């Protein structure tokens, strides 16, 4: 007989810490001599969903890669939960990176492992749990992202949306506090994209995760974002920060209104 377990909830959730989860100060970054972003400063608060948006080539994905320590900034500081990623030693950097869950555009699942093994991979590497307990944790994560039915499939057998959801589950396996998602809705059908948005909101609500999402899918931005930060490839700076609905209607910057209202250029822009 399956036992009925009583779960008595006796306390309210603890108050969130006032320190930002991610703090970026005067960041200058780019590739080689090419600067993509100058003097960028912003904070991502705990439990917040912040969307980084901007046109193609504005440095959204590069900013995300700087935040996870894959690219060294040219100047400025990136602070993750109170510790600088820029000045951290290699060991400290690895510890900080473990606090971050990252979902790459393609999901970046390991092709030789099935979905369950992919999600279990960080647990295999970094915990002493038994196989049964690792499997249970991984399967619960797959349930959370609505991928339980696909646990035995290989990555090559998954659709784009399934790859991304499995990528999110793997990113969360070690109990990260901050999830960074690179273009989660890109290339997905509207239903799958809406499901993914619902998954993100559910994870924030139930797990209390902080999200930094790189995207330019307007529907997703309005569905999930508490705040949007807009990058501009011409001025190489942050040109707007605020609630998406406010930016669409009330931004003083025409480029921001144009982006949010999905309007074409009045004249062909000259290359900068």
């Amino acid at each position, binding site marked *: *007989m399956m036992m009925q*377990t009583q779960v008595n909830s006796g306390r309210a959730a603890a108050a969130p810490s006032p320190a930002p989860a991610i703090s970026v100060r005067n960041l200058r970054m780019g590739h080689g001599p090419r600067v993509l972003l100058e003097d960028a400063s912003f904070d991502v608060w705990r439990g917040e969903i912040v969307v980084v948006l901007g046109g193609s080539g504005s440095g959204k994905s590069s900013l995300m890669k700087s935040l996870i320590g894959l690219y060294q900034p040219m100047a400025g500081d990136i602070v993750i939960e109170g510790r600088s990623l820029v000045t951290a030693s290699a060991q400290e950097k690895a510890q900080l990176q473990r606090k971050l869950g990252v979902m790459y555009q393609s999901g970046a699942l390991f092709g*030789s492992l099935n979905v369950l093994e992919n999600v279990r991979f960080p647990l295999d590497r970094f915990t002493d*749990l038994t196989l049964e307990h690792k499997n249970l944790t991984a399967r619960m994560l797959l349930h959370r992202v609505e991928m339980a039915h696909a646990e035995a499939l290989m990555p090559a057998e998954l659709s784009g949306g399934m790859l991304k959801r499995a990528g999110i589950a793997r990113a969360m396996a070690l109990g990260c506090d901050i999830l960074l998602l690179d273009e989660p809705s890109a290339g997905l059908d509207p239903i799958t994209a809406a499901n993914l948005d619902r998954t993100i909101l559910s994870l924030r609500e139930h797990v209390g995760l902080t999200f930094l999402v790189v995207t330019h899918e307007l529907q997703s931005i309005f569905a999930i974002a508490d705040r949007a930060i807009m990058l501009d490839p011409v001025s190489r700076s942050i040109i707007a920060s605020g609630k998406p609905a406010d930016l669409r209607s009330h931004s003083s910057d025409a480029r921001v209104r144009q982006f949010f209202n999905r309007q074409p250029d009045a004249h062909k822009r000259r290359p900068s």
Partner: protein
Amino acid sequence: MSTGTANRTGADDAESIRLPERITAQTAAPIWKSTLDTLAHNPAGPIVFDASRLAYVDNVGAAFLFDLTRRERSAHAQVEIRNLALNVAALVRDFDAADFVVPPPGRRDRGILEHLGQATAQQIAYAKQMVGFLRACAGAFREALTRRGAVDWGDVLDIATEAGANAVPIVLLTGFLMGVIIAFEIGLVAQKFGAVIFVVDGVGIAMLRELGVLMTAIVFAGRTGAAFAAQIGTQKVNEEVNAITTFGLNPVHFLALPRLLAAVLVLPLLTVLADLIGIFGGALVMVTFDVGFLQFYSQLLGAITAGDFMLGIIKAAVLGLMIAAVGCHRGLTTGAGATSVGLSATSAVVTSIVLIVVIDGLFAVLTS
């Protein structure tokens, strides 16, 4: 106080376990194990988990709590979690134990017979595919010969440069060493019988008929055959092959034909280099056996024929065609994902080396 393990107390009738402040991926293993031990040792009695201190769980901690709630126990031996914080309880309540009853599918161990059967079936399927591919290649060759402009010779030249000119250093090195080794090994034995001069015959014939072409073909298979499979395999994974097909182009003609032509042209040239440098290496060694360069040269001219040289060159052309065909075929049959590209490249090299030996054997039988 934060502890890494659950504390046991026995305040009332039920076994009581106090959970620590945090249960995370790093701390959960001993807690989970000791808790399950407690459950196993008390199959008939109720157990209470006091979560009043528990403030934080991550996904592993949530899995631990859920695992407690799904254990099968008798009605009098219930498990109760008391004083669980609302935010922690929320992490567990979405899950239904029934969803996790079936164990995850593990990787099934296949017996040797199943392995053997599957491998045989794969090889038969591969042979059928290869025949179809060679037929398509023959069609592409026929078109290349009969229709002007059917071959992009610029492509052929680029591939020939990469597969041929850039392979010259390694072919020279392996060819030279092969000549040196053969001359030295045969020389040591021949010296005992006073037949050192006949080592020249052995080096010349072996290099021209067998070793020059074999070593060059093996290097070519490892270097160029694998590259062909990886290049075309990556194009297949990136759907470039589909794009070529939807343009109305034949992928065999577009991707394989230039590589086949380049390989047929280049491998004989590399073989000539390997032959020459191998014989030169042999001549150098023979100096240590008191056979000078002039004596080596005159003995060599008497020992080898144009037929020996041509046999090696024809064999090189056939092996070049085979290596390129196997590489292109493996590339075009690549599955999905980056792993498949690696498998295609490996498979192309292994198949090519096996076929090199088989084809060499056939030539030996046909020309003996």
